[in-house]
């Protein structure tokens, strides 16, 4: 089957730091794909290249076979790649309604109010429309950001550490939400919480020092000796 998104030899260095150093990567349509790796492995840099927030230095990115390597970030969003920030990025001084409406009208929806209501319902924020977004609790702000991503009706939703700072109960709800999105939306997830990763992901890519260390199902990755050395093993041993 053709990949939905694919990269070949993707490179981004910051001076001497090889943040992303020749990454080949495939995102299959309809999967939940997790991107893991130790701190500084290049995960956020890699998805920033995918979403166009950072320019690529070498290599190639395709979306359904179309070369999008030089496409500016806003045009990639229009092409169907939505990105939610690692550090929550909403419009704190605008209402919840306006926050989501900006995403709904960006995709060209005719009925903005209906689109907003639908997106808010999916993340269980119905009834918060009129509230100023900055006054929401942290967990609700994360959900609002996910709602903005969903409201774009993306083909690929990139979530950068979405469960960071969420309470245990909120994480359960979040997992159910992500499961409900596939296979219409393909999910690329950066996540530190291994329980969430092992539970949700169909496939996992492990990055280390800007390179791909392993790719496979959660079981295969867990069993990979290289991964255990670099990450899981060390982490578990230390923990």
């Amino acid at each position: 089957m053709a990949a939905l998104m694919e990269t070949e030899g993707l490179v981004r260095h910051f001076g001497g730091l090889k943040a992303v150093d020749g990454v080949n990567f495939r995102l299959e349509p309809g999967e939940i794909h997790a991107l893991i790796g130790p701190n500084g492995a290049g995960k956020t840099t890699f998805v920033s290249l995918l979403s166009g927030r950072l320019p690529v230095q070498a290599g190639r990115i395709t979306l359904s076979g179309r070369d999008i390597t030089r496409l500016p970030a806003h045009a990639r969003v229009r092409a169907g790649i939505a990105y939610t920030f690692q550090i929550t990025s909403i419009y704190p001084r605008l209402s919840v309604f306006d926050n989501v409406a900006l995403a709904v009208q960006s995709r060209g929806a005719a009925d903005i109010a209906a689109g907003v209501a639908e997106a808010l319902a999916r993340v269980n924020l119905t009834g918060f429309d009129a509230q100023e977004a900055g006054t929401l609790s942290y967990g609700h702000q994360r959900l609002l950001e996910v709602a903005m991503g969903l409201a774009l009706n993306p083909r690929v939703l990139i979530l950068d550490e979405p469960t960071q700072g969420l309470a245990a109960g909120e994480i359960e709800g979040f997992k159910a939400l992500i499961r409900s999105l596939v296979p219409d939306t393909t999910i690329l997830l950066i996540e530190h919480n291994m329980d969430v990763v092992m539970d949700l992901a169909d496939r996992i890519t492990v990055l280390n020092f800007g390179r791909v260390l392993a790719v496979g199902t959660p079981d295969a990755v867990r069993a990979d000796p290289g991964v255990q050395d670099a990450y899981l093993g060390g982490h578990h041993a230390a923990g």
Partner: protein
Amino acid sequence: MSGGARIWALHLALVAMLFAALFVLPTYHATNLARIMVLAVFAMGYNLAFGYTGLLSLGHAMFFAAGMFAMGLPVWHWGLGGGPALLLGLVAGGAMAGAVGLLALRTAGVSFMIVTLMFAQAGYLTILYFGQVTGGDEGFVVDAAARRLFGFDLSSDVPRYLAALALFAAAMAGCLWLVRSPFGRVMVAMRENEERSRMLGYDPFRVKLAALVISGVYAGAAGAAYGLLFGYVGGSFATIQYSILPMLYVLLGGAGTVLGPFLGALLMFYLIDITSGFTSAWLFFVGAALVLLILFAPKGILGTIRERGARWLP
């Protein structure tokens, strides 16, 4: 009454009050009010760029003067009529803002402020340099024959007031419609969080350029109308003072509010009018008013009212 109906009712009520004021006020104040309405149109344009889109420009005098000279020069040199000249002014303001924006919008924040200031100074010096064509320092009087619109003589008080009111009402309705439209929401989004807006699929450069051009059209229309209604075109309107005035009006009345520019222009105009009547140090009072504003109502008068309860105020 629904939110939308209440908002339109409020703004129509202001227009009705201004219409009634023509029959109540003495001529001196009616003429002042006509000036204030035209300056408020200028400030509304400034507000669309600064208050709604977050573009802090110090170059709007250039767009105001572009409108004024694009109206006045064809009248002076070729005897063009008032109506077409007014349209030329409006187009010139927008075109000038588009040209400046293409270059200046590569910068942001303080750099944008300095680049726009630089362009405006260059514009002012250009007017002086080509003094034989532009009238330079002294400016020129707009020919009375051109100061007619639909058969009305704009140099007499009542038609002049009504023309100013018509322009003001049209500008305000346009502004109100724009800021309540989906594009208005995107303008505010750029002001509030540009990176987030980009990642929702909006091209910041295009949105800001469009906002600046609309702002320039307002400034150009105001400049052209000012020259046509009050009969004088001069280089002094291209000085930095005319970039700062609309900013003061907007800050005083409330940035990012539809009625703020008018309220700010009204209060500031009379503050200067009254204080300059008894002291040459009237700038002291302007300064004091601004200090009080920053201390007690940094969001301006209507911005503060909106914050304290009238959340529906556009």
